């Protein structure tokens, strides 16, 4: 019965089943997937003759349904790294074939047996210059409603980031963040709860800051990069910028595994990573990519701010994902 149910689900979703010389790439849509298409899929199709069909947005429930029903229509999926670690444990992912995908130059922080880095990003503090007087300089300032009045926007979903920001703002040293003190984090978040506007997706975060609906917030650096490119009057602080990564995975039982591995090799190559970083403002996960990028683009990447950088602990999050999420949503709903 379980199978029937999952089968019906997956059957309904199987809108883009790929043929022999095709494969399906799934990502989050928007400007990010556009950049991935241009930087990875199009050159890869031109050189290999394998057509890359685009699907999206990434949906972990769909991914699980496909694998459970043994009817997998996605071949490469862009997912958050903490999910990838958990999904690998649950047996939802194929191992990466490192005979096809060169491993030597990949940043070891963002690759493992079942996933290779897609790109990495930082959460940065961004603000609308018209709506804020002065310059917020640290996460602590986002909790100081006297010095910096106005709405602040944070990422809505339970994910690495906001808990760490609250703890840093409360004075926890960066090297003492883990294991996360959830009680302390929620207590700190309580102090500004009524001033928080949540953003659920990248476009929403841009809209909130650009319109001044929120004076400042925690944004993905690529989204701030895009705002600046569009000429929005935004400021950004890289102090204590928090890194997290998206990774590329192959769902267990993917129909075009060979094509998928070749695609991963192209996507993680220095050239693929350099082109994507240039288009998106997110950082490359191939250490050789920077050599192929214009100097002014390199300056704008999280890589240029490593001295003030803190790595969010993906393994910790993968381990405690459910437990933190339960408390997170309970706290939000209060």
């Amino acid at each position, binding site marked *: *019965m*379980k199978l*029937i*149910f999952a089968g*019906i689900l997956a059957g309904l979703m199987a809108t883009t089943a790929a043929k022999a010389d095709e494969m399906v790439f799934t990502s989050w849509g928007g400007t990010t997937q556009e950049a991935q298409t241009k930087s990875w899929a199009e050159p890869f199709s031109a050189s290999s003759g394998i057509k890359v069909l685009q699907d999206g947005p990434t*949906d*972990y*429930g*769909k991914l*699980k349904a496909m694998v459970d029903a043994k009817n997998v229509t996605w071949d490469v999926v862009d997912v958050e790294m903490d999910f990838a670690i958990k999904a690998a444990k*649950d047996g939802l992912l194929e191992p990466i074939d490192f005979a096809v995908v060169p491993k030597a130059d990949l940043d070891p922080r963002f690759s493992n047996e079942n996933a290779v880095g897609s790109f990495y990003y930082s959460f940065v503090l961004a603000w609308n210059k018209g709506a804020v007087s002065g310059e917020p300089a640290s996460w602590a300032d986002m909790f100081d409603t006297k010095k910096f009045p106005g*709405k602040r926007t944070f990422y*809505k*979903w*339970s994910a690495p980031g906001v808990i760490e920001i609250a703890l840093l703002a409360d004075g926890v040293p960066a090297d003492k963040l883990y294991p996360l003190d959830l009680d302390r984090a929620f207590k700190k978040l309580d102090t500004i709860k009524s001033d928080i*506007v*949540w953003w*659920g997706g990248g476009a929403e975060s841009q809209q909130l800051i650009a*319109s*001044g*609906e929120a004076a400042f917030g925690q944004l993905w650096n690529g989204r701030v990069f895009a705002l600046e490119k569009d000429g929005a009057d935004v400021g950004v602080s890289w102090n204590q910028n928090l890194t997290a990564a998206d990774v590329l995975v192959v769902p267990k039982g993917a129909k075009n595994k060979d094509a998928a591995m070749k695609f991963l090799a192209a996507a993680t190559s220095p050239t693929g990573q350099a082109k994507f970083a240039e288009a998106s403002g997110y950082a490359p996960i191939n250490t050789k990519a920077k050599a192929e990028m214009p100097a002014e683009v390199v300056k704008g990447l999280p890589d240029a701010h490593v001295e003030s950088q803190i790595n969010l602990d993906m393994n910790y999050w993968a381990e405690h*994902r*459910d437990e933190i*999420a339960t408390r997170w*949503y*309970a706290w*939000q*709903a*209060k």
Partner: protein
Amino acid sequence: MSVEAQQGIATPRIPAGLGGLLPALMLIGLFFVVPVLALLLRSVTDPAPGLQNYAALLGDGTYARVFFNTFLVAAVVTIVTVLVAFPVAWMLAIMPPALASILFGIIILSMWTNLLTRTYAWMVLLQRTGVINRALMGAGIIDQPLPLINNLTGVTIGMVYIMLPFMILPLVGTLRAIDPMTLRAAALCGASPLAAFRRILLPLSLPGIAAGGLMVFVMSLGYFVTPALLGGTSNMMLAEMIAQMIQSLLNWGLGSAAAFVLLVVTMALYALQLRLVGARRTTGGA
């Protein structure tokens, strides 16, 4: 084609019993009963056999609050929708048919516009820097923006707007069926307009209100997009919570249990309403 065959089409010889109903029953079975049973099964088997998913749902204050929110929002939306829809429906019922059909078209047109587009439009109108707040502040009526979004107000406004056609349509049907002479008779007998409304029009239009109200209430219970975009996290409704459980936590057992509880409560309410209003009057409204 033979005469016999034509007659066969005109007057089916098969009695309208189980045989004739078989295709319809199979459709309902395959697409409605089987999935619901699968849902029920998953809720008591995933991750392990037992009732632990239900225990988790009913024993946790958060889920209780989300359930409460869901029914509160659905109730508020239903009441406001009835209050707004009734005058519109009455106007449509008594105005010349040609004009009424134009207005009908406008109301239906809104149903054909993408739901997400309409919800985003409300965001632009309602937010702190939105059209409404800017206009009111510009006119000097308020000096601080009104909190119209990310709360119950925002959810109610957005959802009432979407639900209005579902209330207006059955209501117009009921109101049109009311003989206008009854109101004239009431007036002739000395009833004030208010008394005529309360004692004649309202009781006679009750089946339409009940039919539309039930539809709006049940649809509101399962609503996702509008509360997610116009509400705050403290207004989270069950559909959003279920989506979280299924999509991001991959806790399908708990999600199934939550969906099944919602289904049972909704059906119980439906049964209750059938008893209160009467099955024939409810379905006869539209």
